[in-house]
Every structure is written in structure tokens, then in C-alpha cells.
């Protein structure tokens, strides 16, 4: 039992006391980045004021403390996502994007050859597309896209054909544009049934619902600290210890080697093989605090709350603003999360965001780094509003008020 209360989260989040153009901030851009609670900011402060030192090769007190903080964060993040061997399966990267590059350049380059297929979906973020295109240029692999249906869901009719020659199915748990919630465990099973491994982009999931890599049965999972109330500059790449052990190094440098001679080098074992150079130590301390904070809220409670708010938001948007706002994404709240791509009749998303800003409302206009998806639905851009655990019903009311003003201004 947790006693999740969004108003409590709001109080914990310093940025939400800000005013924008003389109005309280209405932050609806958590899909871009979440706002860290004081506990996360203070954890990093404490690190810098009390424990900072470079990790791993130290003997003195603060070096040990920094190492404990960093390795402790690794284990705690591992447990948070249900990793079977938390100490040995979590690699810290700088963001989700680097995690996918690591997947493509290390596992991909070692296991894929010309003609092998990596299956992604048309709803992927560029982070899970461009690295595969780069591998295609280098190695002649094929990158295939699962198409999207008019219902804003994956079109999996032709499963067997889609999986022909596929070595890896890499897909997002939740679309950062449509809010679509994919059936992760079923998709992983489909991949395994077809002899492929499965990678999950959990960037939009991990701060909003309980994540269990074992329940998913996934082989790789990537996400970012800054989308789960944590700091910038830190991402996570998770894979099973056995796969990790088989992956060749990616970036080269200090910390990732066992030995270097003038004639060659021997890579280290374990996650550090993929963590060349001084890692994001303070950021790991911040993520650890974020994980604790989220755990304290209770991820199931957060998911339930955001779901209820999603239902409300869909209703409000459908009924207000004279029917001039279309939500690009699944109609059914059960099939989606609180990410709302808005198409306002006659008003460009850029202008929508501009007018909303005047009301202190933060939404993101653009292609959201998902251009194939945008093309699929014939959109150049949308104005995206998205929820976090600190979002209140009142935020939705301000959103609707501001949308009404937008429609009025543009006539």
C-alpha cells in the first residue's frame, strides 16, 4: 500500500512553483523530460558536497563512497526493473539514444551480417531507427518496419512475413507521439517464437508504470533517467548477464579495459566494459534517488492515477474547444498512456504551443523525433501534451482554456 497523492508530488517538485508570464506553470511536457523532485536534486548536491571522487580505482574514503554510490545505483536500478542479476546487467550510458547505439554497434555489429533483418516499427523514436540505418550502411543489414494501422496501433496481421529473416525485434513499449501502449510481453514472445531477440525502448514507460524485464522476458531494455524524474546525462542499457558477457566493447578508453599494451588491449568484463571514461557519477546518485522516490510513490498507483487522468483528458478534449481539437492516437484509454498529440483545426502546432505558452502551458510542437510516424499519418507536426505524476486535473482545465483562446485568436 502506498498513499500516492499527486499534490504531494507537486509540492516535492520545485520547478512547479514557477510562474510563466505571470501565471503558474502548467507543465505538460513530461514525455520530453520529467521534472525532478527535490529529493533527486538534493541527492546530487549531497554527492558533490560530501562524496565526490572518481570511482573504481580509489582506496581513500570518498573514492570508496563514490564507488558505493555509483555501483549501488546500478544495483538499485537493476532491482527497480526486475533484473535477475542487478549488479551485473545494468550499463550506464548518457541517454536512451546512446543505449541503442551501444546495442547496434556492439551486439548488432557482432551478431548481424548482410541480409539479416532488424525489425522496428513505424512508431519508433529516431533513437531506435537511426542506429540501425547506420548499421545498414556499414553492414548491409535490412531494416524493416512494422506498419501502423489507422487505429494508431501496430499492424501485426502478417506476423510470419514480417519476421522473415529477423534477428532482432526492437520496439517501443509506449509511443512518445501517440501514447499507444504496445503489448510488450506478447511482442517479445512473437520475436522469440520466430527465433529473434527482442529489445524494448522503455523511455516512455519506466517512469509511469511498473517495469519488469522478467515479466516482459525482454533481451534488451533501454531508457533515460531524465524521463523518470531523474537527471539529464544518464541513460540505462539493460541486458541479460549472458548476453552482456558476449558483447564486444563499444567506446574505448579508461575503465573498460583489463590491460593495454602498446600492441593491443584486453577489455574488462562486466558492465564496466561498456563504460569508458569517467562515468556520470552524480547522475547515478540522482537516478538512485529518483528510483527510490518512484518506488515510494508506488508505480502501480502512479499508473492508475495517470490512467484516470487520461480518461478525463480525452473526454475534456473531445467535448471542449468546439470539437476543433483532434487527439492523434488511440481513442480507448486502456490502449494508451497520457501522451496527447493534438491537431488543432486551422492552427499550426507551432502556433498552438506559442499561444499556450502565454497561458503558462508547456506543450511541445514538432515531429517528436518520430518522422516515419508523422509521415504515416500525413502530419508535419503535432502539439503534444503529456502527463506526469505531478499533473493535476486543474492542469487539464488550463490546457483547455488555453486551447479555446488559441482557436479564438486564429478564428
Amino acid at each position, binding site marked *: 500500500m502506498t498513499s500516492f497523492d499527486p499534490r504531494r508530488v507537486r509540492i516535492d517538485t520545485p520547478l512547479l512553483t514557477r510562474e510563466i508570464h505571470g501565471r503558474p506553470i502548467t507543465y505538460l511536457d513530461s514525455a520530453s523530460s520529467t521534472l525532478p523532485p527535490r529529493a533527486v536534486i538534493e541527492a546530487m548536491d549531497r554527492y558533490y558536497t560530501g562524496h565526490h571522487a572518481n570511482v573504481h580505482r580509489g582506496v581513500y574514503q570518498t573514492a570508496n563512497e563514490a564507488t558505493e554510490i555509483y555501483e549501488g545505483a546500478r544495483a538499485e536500478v537493476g532491482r527497480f526493473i526486475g533484473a535477475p542479476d542487478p549488479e551485473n546487467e545494468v550499463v550506464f550510458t548518457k541517454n536512451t539514444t546512446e543505449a541503442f547505439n551501444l546495442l547496434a554497434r556492439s551486439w548488432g555489429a557482432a551478431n548481424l551480417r548482410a541480409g539479416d533483418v532488424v525489425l522496428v516499427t513505424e512508431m519508433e523514436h529516431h533513437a531506435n531507427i537511426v542506429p540501425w540505418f547506420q548499421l545498414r550502411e556499414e553492414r548491409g543489414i535490412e531494416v524493416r518496419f512494422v506498419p501502423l494501422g489507422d487505429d494508431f496501433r501496430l499492424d501485426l496481421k502478417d506476423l510470419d512475413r514480417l519476421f522473415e529473416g529477423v534477428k532482432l525485434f526492437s520496439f517501443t513499449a509506449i509511443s512518445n507521439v501517440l501514447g499507444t501502449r504496445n503489448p510488450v510481453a506478447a511482442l517479445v514472445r512473437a520475436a522469440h517464437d520466430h527465433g529473434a531477440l527482442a529489445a524494448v525502448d522503455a523511455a516512455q514507460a519506466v517512469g509511469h508504470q511498473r517495469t519488469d524485464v522478467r515479466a516482459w522476458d525482454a533481451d534488451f531494455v533501454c531508457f533515460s533517467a531524465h524521463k523518470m524524474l531523474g537527471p539529464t546525462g544518464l541513460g540505462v542499457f539493460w541486458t541479460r548477464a549472458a548476453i552482456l558477457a558476449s558483447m564486444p566493447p563499444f567506446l574505448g578508453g579508461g575503465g573498460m579495459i583489463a590491460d593495454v599494451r602498446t600492441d593491443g588491449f584486453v577489455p574488462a568484463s562486466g558492465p564496466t566494459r561498456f563504460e569508458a571514461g569517467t562515468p556520470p557519477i552524480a547522475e547515478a546518485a540522482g537516478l538512485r534517488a529518483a528510483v527510490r522516490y518512484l518506488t515510494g510513490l508506488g508505480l502501480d498507483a502512479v499508473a492508475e492515477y495517470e490512467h484516470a487522468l487520461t480518461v478525463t483528458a480525452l473526454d475534456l478534449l473531445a467535448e471542449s474547444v468546439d470539437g476543433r481539437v483532434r487527439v492523434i492516437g488511440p481513442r480507448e484509454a486502456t490502449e494508451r498512456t497520457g501522451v496527447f498529440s493534438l491537431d488543432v483545426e486551422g492552427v*499550426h502546432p507551432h502556433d498552438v504551443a506559442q499561444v499556450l505558452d502565454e497561458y503558462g502551458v508547456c506543450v511541445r510542437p*514538432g515531429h517528436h523525433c518520430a518522422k516515419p510516424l508523422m509521415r504515416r499519418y500525413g502530419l*508535419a507536426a503535432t502539439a503534444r501534451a503529456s502527463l506526469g505524476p505531478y499533473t493535476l486535473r486543474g492542469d487539464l482545465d488550463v490546457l483547455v482554456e488555453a486551447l479555446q483562446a488559441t482557436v479564438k485568436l486564429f478564428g
Partner: protein
Amino acid sequence: MAGLDDLYREIILDHYRSPRNRGELDHPTARTEGFNPLCGDELVVYLVVRDGVLEDIKLTGHGCSISQASSSMMSAAVKGKPLSDVRQIIDRFKSMMTVHEDGTDPEAAVTPDLRTDGELAALAGVVKFPVRIKCATLAWNTLTQAIDDAARA
């Protein structure tokens, strides 16, 4: 502080709703594409240049109100003018779109010349919204490119 009124002048919204010189030209001297990767705005400029005069201009594409209005106003301002005049209008517009770090009121940058360019001065308020400057200048950069393309054609 800048308010929405500075950005969305009535004349700008008018051009956005009823853009001038929309469409394609059948036999353009130049057809040039412009692109703003940040917001996805796309623009195609069609020019007919004869004897040093920009005889006709048409535009297609999509974008926000500022980019659409700016391109529409631009087309009205340059159509039928000698290229030397067009270049001067472009220069004046670009300098109007320059952020003054010292906080100079952008309206003060509206030269008398620009005022005679007609409605363009209405875009001066865009400078108060630095992220939107690119929206306003897309058409103009594409026009500059199109004039170069035409010279080479």
C-alpha cells in the same frame, strides 16, 4: 515583456488565412525548396526572372502562421521589382530580424525604407520571440537561394 499581440498582428493573421501568390508556376526560371528541420516547415519558391526583374513569384508548402505570413508578405513585397530592389528588401528584412543583444527595441530597427515596403514592418515583433525568427526568415533565405538559382539557370 513581449505579449502575443506583438507576434500575431492582425495583418499577419490575415496573410496566414489568405496567403498571397499561392501556387506553382508552369515555367519558372527557378524552383527552390526551403526547409526548417526544427519545426518541419517546408516551402517551395517559384520565380520568373526576366531582364533583371522578378516578374512573377509563387509559393507552395506548409508551416506555422509566422512562416506562412512572412512568405506571403514577402511575395507581395518583391513581385514585379527589379532584382536590385529585391536584394535591398531582403537585406532590410534580415537586419530587422537580427536580435539586438543590447535590448534595443526591435521596432526601432524598422527603417523608413522597410515601412515603405508596406506590411513587412508588422513582422518586427517576431524578434521578441527568438525561436520564431527562423520561421520568419525561412522564406527569405529560400528566396535568396532562388535568385541565385535563377541567375545560374
